[in-house]
C-alpha cells in the first residue's frame, strides 16, 4: 500500500559488496523519495551506484543497512518468493539491451509478464497485441526482435513493462542504445504512457538529452546522491510548449550540481 503518494522511500540506505578487506561500498546512505505521478532520473558517472540503487529498490539486491519502503512494502522483510511475486505484480522493467526473447514475436514478448502471472497464452498474446497497438506498433506485432529496429525493440520492451499495469516502472538506460531522434521518440512515448498519477517511473541514464523529461533528478557519485533536483514538473510541462533551447536552459537550473565537467554537460 502506498502512503502519502510516496512510491519509494529510502533513508540512509547502504549497500556493501564483498567482505573484510575486499569490501566495496556501492551505496553510502541514500536518502530519496520518489513520488507517484513523477518520473525520476538517477544520473551520474559510471560506478556512481545508480544501477545498484535501482537493483536495491526493485529487490534484485538486498540493502546492507538503512530503511527502504517500496510501494508500502519493506523488501528486506519479504521472503524471496514474496519478492518475486511483488516484482511480478508491481514492477515493470525496461532494460538497456531490451532483453526481449529472440524466439518470441513482439506481441508474445509483451505477453510474458501476463504469462508469468498465470494468464492463458491466447488471452495474454491478444492483450500484448492490443497494447502494442496503443504504442503504434500494431503492424509489427508478429515480427521477431531480430526484425525490429532498436527503437521498435525498445517500444516492445516498454509495452512489456506496462502491459500488466504495474505501479512502478524502472528503466535502465532506455535510450543509450538508440540514436538521439529515436531516443527522444521513445522517451516521449514513455512519459506519455507510463507517467500517471498512480504510477512512478525511475530511469537510470547517462543521456543528458532526456533530462528534461524528468520531474526529479538525483545526481549520484561514489555511492551518494550528491544533488537532487526536485519539482521539475514545470520543466516537463514547458518542454511540451516551448522551443527546445528554452527547455534546455530551464532543465539546467538546479540546486547543486558539482559534476558538470565529469558528465560533460
Amino acid at each position, binding site marked *: 500500500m502506498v502512503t502519502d503518494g510516496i512510491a519509494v522511500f529510502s533513508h540512509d540506505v547502504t549497500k556493501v559488496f564483498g567482505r573484510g578487506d575486499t569490501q566495496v561500498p556501492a551505496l553510502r546512505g541514500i536518502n530519496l523519495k520518489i513520488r507517484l505521478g513523477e518520473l525520476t532520473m538517477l544520473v551520474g558517472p559510471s560506478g556512481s551506484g545508480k544501477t545498484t540503487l535501482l537493483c536495491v529498490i526493485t529487490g534484485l539486491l538486498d540493502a546492507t543497512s538503512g530503511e527502504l519502503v517500496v510501494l508500502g512494502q519493506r523488501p528486506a522483510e519479504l521472503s524471496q518468493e514474496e519478492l518475486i511475486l511483488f516484482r*511480478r505484480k508491481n514492477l515493470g522493467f525496461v*532494460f538497456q539491451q531490451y532483453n526481449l526473447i*529472440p524466439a518470441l514475436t513482439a506481441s508474445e514478448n509483451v505477453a510474458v509478464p501476463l504469462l508469468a502471472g498465470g494468464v492463458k497464452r491466447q488471452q495474454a498474446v491478444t492483450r500484448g497485441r492490443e497494447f502494442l497497438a496503443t504504442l503504434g506498433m500494431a503492424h509489427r506485432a508478429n515480427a521477431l526482435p531480430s526484425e525490429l529496429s532498436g527503437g521498435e525493440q525498445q517500444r516492445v520492451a516498454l509495452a512489456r513493462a506496462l502491459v500488466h499495469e504495474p505501479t512502478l516502472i524502472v528503466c535502465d538506460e532506455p535510450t543509450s542504445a538508440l540514436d538521439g531522434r529515436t531516443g527522444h521518440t521513445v522517451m516521449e512515448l514513455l512519459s506519455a504512457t507510463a507517467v500517471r498519477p498512480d504510477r512512478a517511473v525511475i530511469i537510470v541514464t547517462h543521456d543528458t538529452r532526456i533530462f528534461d523529461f524528468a520531474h526529479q533528478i538525483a545526481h549520484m557519485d561514489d555511492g551518494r546522491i550528491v544533488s537532487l533536483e526536485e519539482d521539475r514538473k514545470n520543466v516537463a510541462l514547458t518542454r511540451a510548449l516551448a522551443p527546445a533551447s528554452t527547455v534546455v536552459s530551464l532543465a539546467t537550473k538546479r540546486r547543486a550540481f558539482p559534476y558538470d565537467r565529469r558528465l560533460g554537460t
Partner: protein
Amino acid sequence: MNFVALKMLVADRSKYFSLIFAIAFASFLLANQISIFIGIMTRPASQIQDVVDADIWVMDPQTLYSDEVYALRDYDLYRIRSVPGVEWAVPLYKGTGRAKGPDGRFRTVILMGVDDATLVGAPRKMLVGSIYGLDQPDAAIIDKAGFQYFFPGQSLQVGEALQMNDRRVLIVGISDASAPFQSFPVLHTRYSQALGFVGRERNLLSFVLAKPSAGVSIQEVCRRIEAATGLRARSAAEFSWDAFRFYMRNTGIPVNFGITVIIALIVGSVVPGQTFYIFTIENLKQFGALKAIGVTNRRIVSMILLQAMVVGATGYGLGMGMAAAFFASFLNYSPTRGIILPWQVMAGIAVVVLFVVGLASLMSIRRVLVLEPAVVFRS
C-alpha cells in the same frame, strides 16, 4: 510459460537439431549394440531353448556348457531313469559333423540326435514337413538357413539329400530352429541315425534329457540325479545361463560390445549435455530478465526440464525408430536371424536418456538458479 520454453528451444535450429541428433544417435547406437549383444549371447543357448519337452539336462560333471561336451556312457541313461522322481529320461546327441551338398560344397553342421522312440528334442517350429518324417531311414530335418546354404535359390522343399560320413541324409523337413552361435546349419535326426552320421567315438551320448515326476520340483530331481549318479544335472534355464556365462568369461565379445556401449554412453551424455548447457548459457540474459520480471525459480526450472524432456523424447523416439528400422530390415537376413530389439532394451535406454537429459539439465538449472537477476542491468 511452456510455450515460451519450447519456442526458445526450437528457435536456435542448429543447437536444437544437434541435441536431437546427438541423443538419437546415442540411443540408436545403444539399442543396436545392446540388442545385438543380447542376440549373440543368447545364441549359445539356442538348442537348449528349442527343446521344450524336457526340463532337465544331465551331462558329464566336466561339461560346462552346451557346445563343448564330454560324452556320457550309454548306461548312464539307465542310472538316471532309476533315480526317484524322474518321470522319464531320453538320450540326446549334440555334436558337429561335416555335411556335403549335391554340388560338392560342404559345411560343418550342428547335429542333434533325438530319442528314436519319443522324438523328444525334435524341433517344434516346422516350416515344411513334419517331425514324424524322422521315422524314415536316413531322415533328417534341416533348418531354413542350412537349406538355403546347401540349396541356394531353391524354394523350401523336402526330398533333397546331403551326405554325411559317406551316408545319405534325406531331408524330410525344414525347421525354424533358433540360430546357433556359429551360424552353422542345424540338423535334427534320430539318435541312432546321428551316431552313424558322425565319426565313431567310444561314447557318443552327449546329454540325457529328463522330466521330473509330477509333484517333484526340477531342482529336487537335479539334486537327486547328481547324488545318485555323480553326473551334473541342470534345469534348462540354468544350463542356458551356463552357456551365457561361459561366453561372457571366455570370449572378447562383452569387451568389444562393452566398449561400444560405453562410447555411446559418453558421446550420448557429453554432446547433449554440453550443447544443452551452452544453449542455456546463451539464454542466461533472457532467463535473468524473466527472473527480474517475476518468473519464479520453480517455473524456470520447469521450463528447462520441459526443454530437456522434449529434446530427450524426440531424440529417443528418433533413435528407437532408427533402431527398429535397422532390425526390421535385417529380420529375414539369415546370419542375423533372431536378433531383435527387445522392449526391455528400449525401456532401459529410455531410462538412460532420461538420466542423460536430467544430468544435462541439472547443470543448466544450477547455472540459472545461481543467476542474479540483477545481471540484466549489466550491458
